[in-house]
């Protein structure tokens, strides 16, 4: 199984708190991450609209 790791917007200021003190995440980042993952999943899992066959 191919596995890909995704995560929300996070800078070094957030990363160093993981497993440490005052772990936190940007609220705006959660929102952006939802949108990002939704688009990613629908691109690979949703039935895609048929491409137009018009030649003009």
């Amino acid at each position, binding site marked *: 199984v191919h596995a890909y*790791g995704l995560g929300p917007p996070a800078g070094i200021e957030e990363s160093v708190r993981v497993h440490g003190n005052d772990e*936190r995440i940007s609220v705006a980042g959660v929102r952006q991450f939802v949108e990002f993952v939704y688009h990613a999943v629908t691109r*690979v899992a949703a039935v895609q609209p048929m491409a137009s066959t018009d030649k003009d």
Partner: protein
Amino acid sequence: MMGRHGNIAAVIFVALMLGGPVGGADSIDGADGSLSLPNWIEAGDEAVGNLADMIKIDTSSGNETKVARYIKAIFDKEGIESEILELQPGRGNLVARLRGNGTKRPVLLMGHTDVVGVEREMWSVEPFAGVVKDGYLYGRGALDNKDNVAVYLEVFLLLHRLQVPLDRDVIFLAQAGEEGASSVGMGFMVAQHWDKVDCEFALDEGGSISLRDGRVFYVGVSTMEKVPRGMRLVAEGTSGHGSIPLADNAITHLAAATCTWRARLRPRSAGRH
């Protein structure tokens, strides 16, 4: 299959670049075959709320089943079938599936619900309260890894509510025991419930999105994990009682070797593992 790796990574990256602005509803009729888009504000509110609620459930000593029950209650309300699977009492994994048409093999959305412990006296806020302060949600698990659980949960709910037609199943897994006890989590699922998580590829934790001036600078997608590397160091020196350390004790040489290795570590920077 490197080609497939590249293709999916590219899709993920392009998806972000093409994503609509964070804001109100982007409802599309769907008559032309295009997908209806969520109300991003409502979706974000719900994801943040679920993340805060899950942080409030202390899973630093197991108890992942409590989070699994929290999620299952949401699924039950939505009419989504799910089940909680335990190898040990209290260490539950929750799995659910949205059915596609079977054209392609499933994609698995997975995150872990256990967290490491805290030194409560070192925190400026209560670590299991889900405190929001200055635009940040604080708490153990906020970034490792209840954030992925909450966001994958939200996306799963959106796909269900919008009745997005799928050409592959989408599986949601909230796993237990990632922090050092994977035998009750992913190990258990692979060994005893592989049919419930078998997939073409999985989206898990590990990457991050880098912003500059509020805009996406790059999207980091991890394709591998660091693994422990044991090392055997042998030193020789004068033996003696530990209460009377000597300059040439073997342990002194080992300590010096460790410090030398540490001094040669390069500083962290973007793109370096």
